[in-house]
């Protein structure tokens, strides 16, 4: 019996080592900050023991998913130093041996793997359910096969080029048509033999393109 008492006495300090001491938390735990009101505004829910239970359950789920064989339970997730901010520290103990704490690296990897699931359970985001020290993975930038600006550019450039070609063609057609008309009226005048003021054809004056006038000057000088 004395042996049992000695054993208990020697084991007691080990058991009584506070899990929530600063050194233990710094080495094995992570601080969590939850900002429900910022995330949900009017639809914010109250943070109470049931929510805390859910948190411990999701972290246990994350550990199970990460290790994929060890059966973590809610009791393996220890929560310390709760504040009104809603912030607390949590530690994970091994399911096989409650005295042994899971190293930080494993906890971080597990949380990273199931971060999305943990966030969705609480309707929060990476910023509002903050694991201090575990950086959120950045969303990859949206990449397009064709950058959208090229599409808009192509459309506008196509319209402008089509417009330029149309206008140039119509001007060309108008000019050749007026040249043809001019030649026809010239022949007509030669046949009729009329003399007009200053030796110029009145028709050709009227048919002049109201442009800057150079091409028609050339025609008139032929007379």
């Amino acid at each position, binding site marked *: 019996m004395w042996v049992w008492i000695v054993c208990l006495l020697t084991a007691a300090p080990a058991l009584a080592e506070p899990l929530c001491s600063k050194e233990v938390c710094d080495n094995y735990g992570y601080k969590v*900050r939850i*900002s*429900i*009101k*910022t995330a949900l505004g009017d639809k914010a829910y109250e943070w109470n023991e049931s929510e805390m239970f859910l948190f411990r359950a999701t972290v246990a789920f994350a550990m199970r998913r990460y290790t994929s064989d060890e059966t973590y339970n809610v009791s393996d997730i220890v929560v310390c130093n709760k*504040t*009104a*901010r*809603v*912030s607390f520290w949590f530690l994970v103990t091994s399911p096989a041996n409650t005295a042994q704490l899971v190293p930080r690296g494993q906890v971080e990897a597990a949380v990273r793997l199931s971060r999305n699931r943990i966030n969705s359970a609480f309707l929060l985001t990476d910023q509002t359910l903050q694991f201090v020290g575990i950086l959120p993975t*950045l969303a*990859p*930038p949206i990449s397009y096969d064709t950058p*959208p*600006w*090229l599409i*808009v*550019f192509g459309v*506008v*450039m196509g319209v*402008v*080029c089509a*417009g*330029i070609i149309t*206008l*140039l063609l119509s*001007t060309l057609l108008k*000019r050749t048509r007026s040249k043809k008309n001019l030649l026809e009226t010239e022949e007509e005048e030669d046949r009729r033999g009329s003399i007009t003021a200053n030796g110029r054809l009145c028709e050709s*004056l009227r048919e*002049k*393109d*109201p*442009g*800057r*006038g*150079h*091409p*028609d*000057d*050339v025609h008139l000088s032929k007379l």
Partner: protein
Amino acid sequence: MAQRRIQEDERYETEDRPKWDNKVQYLLTCVGFAVGLGNVWRFPYLCQIYGGGAFLIPYLIALVFEGLPLLYLELAIGQSLRQGSIGVWNSISPYLGGVGVASMAVSFLVGLFYNTILAWVLWYFFNSFQDPLPWSQCPLNENLTDYVEECVRGTAANYYWYRVTLNITPDISSSGSLQWWLVLSLALAWSIVYICFIRGIETVGKAVYVTATFPYLVLTIFLVRALTLPGAIDGLEYLFTPDWGVLLNPQVWLDAATQIFFSLSLAFGGLIAFASYNPRKNNCERDALLVGCINSATSLYASIPIFAILGFKATTNFNNCITSNVLKLTNEFDIAEKNITADNYDMWLKTLNTSHPDRINSLELRECNLKRFMDQSVSGTGLAFIVFTEAVIEMPASQVWAVLFFIMLFSLGLSSMFGNLEGVLTPLFDLHMVPSWVPKELFTGIICMVSFLVALIFTMGSGNYWLEIFNSYVGSVPLLIIAFFEITSVVVFYGMKRFSEDIEFMTGHRPGLFWHLCWMGVSPLMLLVVLVAYVVVQVQVQPQYPTWNPSYTLFPEAEVKPYPDWVFAICVMLSAVPVVPIPLVALYHLIRRLTHPEQHTRDEPHVSNPYDNKAFSSEPQL
């Protein structure tokens, strides 16, 4: 005298000079030319830094005594002599042909960089059709572990402008390479200008129905939207609160005079060209008053939504600043969420500072001062492409506002480009420098192509620095010199008497005493004072420029570097070369007259004008 003039008029009416379809087209084109990007991003800035409402006093004085007389003079001389800028001054006296050549050179050089700004506007316009807007977030670096450092240290909008759009080099000596996306945008910008100019004022006149009116529509939409944003009223208060002390600062008067001068787009030759397509009998006095007043009214009208939005942006920045400080305090002291709000932040800070000053210091709380955010005033491209784009992200339905804003900027700039290109093309066509077998469409295309190729300088890595140089050195002193020579030529060489008679014929009444006083005394004097003061101020300032240098220790602040010598030589050349034709042409004609006195009277410029002294010949001219 008058009867002979009427006979000459009838002969000139048979000339096939292009005509405006109606008066509205002409007015819209002049208004579009005068109202440009400067009305949106220069005037509100000046209003803000020069004590708000008080700035309007020197501005309006400059408008009445300098802007309107010069505007009236250009429109009247163009309408009566019915030529582009070179032809008009040649007609008054061959010695003055250089003034027209100078106008043409300045129009060409300004057109180069102005259209590059439009290319930037187009680039942002194309990129506004995305969700989320590309300038709202920083891109990730190659490892996908963190955001790009340059972006994190500056802001996302800054990064997008300087790195993604311009890909700017750290200084002007390193040119970098041509940025292909800017080359494409520039090609499109010049294509759009070409299609509007393809048939001369026939197509320009139709295009201005849209380009000159659309900005007013968008400004109104923005006005309504902006006034509903939080913080808008603060911004407007800040803008318009007058600080009467600024009236004692001579710099304010100088800036007001230069602003009104450049805002009205005087001395480019474009206004003379536009007026030359008018019928002889047209009330150009009313036109000048209308265009001048609409231009100033537009500046005022544009500054309201701009400042409402800047006030909104400052308020947003201030709120974000407070929120981040609140978060820091809440996290540090584990206070319950939402206990510290923006309202009781100061009280909380004071109590916490007295109890835990060292922890407060270690937090590095930001100084949140609304006035300081308001003071971050920007003008020019910084306003449009950085400040405004940041503001647009915060507004709901950002893509719509971004698209509207950039289309508005493009319309404003395009209608000003019409004037620039007109100032280049009309003199060349009038002097028959284009061989007659070259159709005008081809020649316009050639000019656009040449301008596009030269403007490729601005698409290089250092392009923005070169653009600033062109903007400061070409678009300033040469214009003042040209305007001074314009007004002196009309008053001294043409004669006020002849000019008054012309105006009487065109408008139906002689110009009043006010106009006489301005043209003969006040305006040339003001121009001379402004020119001298401007040059003196420029000479005193060390020629340096702000650069975007990521390796600068104080990045993201701009590192100010001095211009290298060869660049400064180019700056001086850019100011001097456009005005050199003025003495050169005069010298050329003087030498010709002295060496061949008889030949000179016969070899008149073949664009003869009945009002020219030398045109009194006995033989009938054709």
